[in-house]
């Protein structure tokens, strides 16, 4: 082993040990539990079986859960991207004098727990909340619209909660974006729309992939916000796992669902970087 390689191993050891103890080991345990056969009473036996998986994939309700989760994650990811992209452009272009302040403002929502923010959204979006009051007063809708206790409420809450992550990821991936490229494109006759489509967007794709990958993963694994803003009427893999494990105590089934989510997230994180490499 060369000195550099030895040094790299040494530097990586603490985090590798932590990941092994706090993530890999529990994940393996979880995998083992997903292969446990539960007795009729619900007690776990020592028998090994793949029945939990075959049940999951043959039960239409479970597949609907998976479809709900994927759809919500995709919608939330896209909505977060649309909301965070202009903000990230402003942050990227801000002068070095304003940038620290703007960054602090961007991440300041993270100072408040997402549970507290979710309760905030429940108050804001309720039938008698200020958002509905405003919509009715402005004459946009004749009577209050349902904004909580459904998928829309969950999506609104998640988009706001995840925006700081998306914004920071976008800015981190905007390294190649230089105003000179836009000026060059303008001098060559490209109008604002063409400049965005042909120059800005391709150069920001690394950030887009990074942010979308992160937000997708975070949405898939979020359960407090869907649970509270969904009012028990939005069913997702993550909320179901929580229910199975904590309320109904069906650990093998919960572990099976968890392994399925882990597989989806693993595939997502592997696929997103590949997406950007194609444009490089």
């Amino acid at each position, binding site marked *: 082993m060369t000195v550099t390689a030895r040094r790299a191993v040494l530097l990586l050891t603490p985090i590798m040990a932590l990941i092994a103890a706090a993530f890999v080991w529990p994940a393996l345990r979880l995998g083992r539990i997903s292969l446990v056969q539960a007795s009729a009473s619900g007690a776990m036996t020592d028998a090994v079986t793949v029945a939990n998986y075959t049940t999951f994939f043959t039960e239409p309700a479970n597949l609907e859960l998976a479809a709900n989760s994927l759809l919500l994650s995709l919608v939330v990811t896209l909505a977060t991207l649309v909301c965070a992209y202009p903000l990230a452009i402003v942050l990227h272009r801000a002068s070095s004098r304003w940038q620290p302040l703007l960054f602090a403002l961007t991440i300041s929502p993270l100072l408040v727990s997402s549970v507290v923010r979710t309760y905030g959204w429940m108050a804001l979006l309720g039938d008698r909340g200020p958002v509905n009051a405003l919509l009715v007063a402005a004459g946009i809708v004749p009577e209050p619209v349902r904004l909580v206790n459904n998928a829309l409420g969950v999506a609104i809450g998640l988009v706001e909660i995840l925006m700081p992550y998306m914004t920071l990821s976008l800015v981190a991936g905007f390294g190649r974006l230089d105003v000179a490229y836009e000026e060059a494109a303008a*001098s*060559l006759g490209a109008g604002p729309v063409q400049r965005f489509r042909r120059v800005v967007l391709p*150069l920001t794709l690394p950030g887009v992939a990074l942010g979308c990958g992160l937000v997708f993963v975070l949405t898939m694994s979020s359960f407090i916000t869907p649970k509270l803003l969904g009012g028990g009427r939005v069913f997702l893999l993550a909320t179901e796992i929580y229910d199975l494990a904590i309320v109904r105590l069906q650990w093998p089934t919960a572990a099976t669902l968890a392994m399925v989510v882990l597989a989806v997230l693993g595939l997502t994180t592997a696929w997103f970087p590949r997406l950007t490499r194609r444009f490089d």
Partner: protein
Amino acid sequence: MTRSAALTLRGVTKHFGAAVAVDGVSLDVAPGSMLGLLGPSGCGKTTVLRAIAGLVPVTAGTITVDGEDITARPPHGRDIGLVFQQYALFPHLSVAANVGFGLEMRGVAAAERRTRVAEALAMVQLSGLDGRRPRELSGGQQQRVALARALVIRPRILLLDEPLSNLDARLRDELRVEIRRIQQRLRITTVFVTHDQAEALAMCDVVGVMSQGRVAQIGPPAEIYERPVSRMVAEFVGRLNTWPCEVVAPGRIRLDGREMPAATDGVANGAALATIRPHRLLLGGAAPAGALNHVTGQVTHVAYVGDLVQYHVAAGALQLRVEAHAARHAETHRVGDVVECRWWPDDLRVFGA
């Protein structure tokens, strides 16, 4: 091939907040000619260029091309080619796609685009590199691609922003000749911004020296170099000896206690500065008999720089910097030699102190 257009600036002014970057610049660039904007950094030359390109809106003044006012037009509606100091080649596009970008924006059909991109790359001697990415090219090659990209759209005006400042000296000389050759062949009206006086003098038909947002002097290179209107211009376009003197009468000064003729050009009697270029000081036998002014001094320093020999000569209170060509049979001097130093009176130019 290119329609040569006339570029005119009238009273162009640009304020950045309270700071005045460009202060009432008026210029005329004749069709097909090349104007060099020369000046120290921060003199406003790049802002003038960016204003012509439409990248900075002007505070006041007008910019016209062939009599047509383009001051209010957005950059993408100006039909002006621009080469950036850092090239600004699109990193995600191939060389061919970079050069073809402007044609694509103009809706030129793919087949014609290919032909014109190939022509443009041949013009800058880069045929065969179409498929490369900018990062796979050397600095000089990137510069050529940037030039091809700006010229392929057949712009009415070409703007060059310090295009050679990121290249090594040898490549710079080579590209200097090449850019000038292409500019003359296309007869394209060009504005060239540089802080390198040799570049401006060598390449341009007309040179404008800028200082603090204004044009200090504009004229043919020889006029700028030989008859600078101010000490700032004189110092900026070449090396200079500067001595305090006193104007005693039109055409006569007192220098280090001795009266002698000099080019005073309307400088009032009293304290002033006498200036002369180091190569206009002639040592010993190099001076013809008619060269009137002379001082005697002692060589204090000799630097041999290949084509030139630079001497420092102390003559009374005067410190002289002298440059002589290192010709094969030229007389050379050593430290400690006592030498006679002569010059033509009209080479000694006097400016107000």
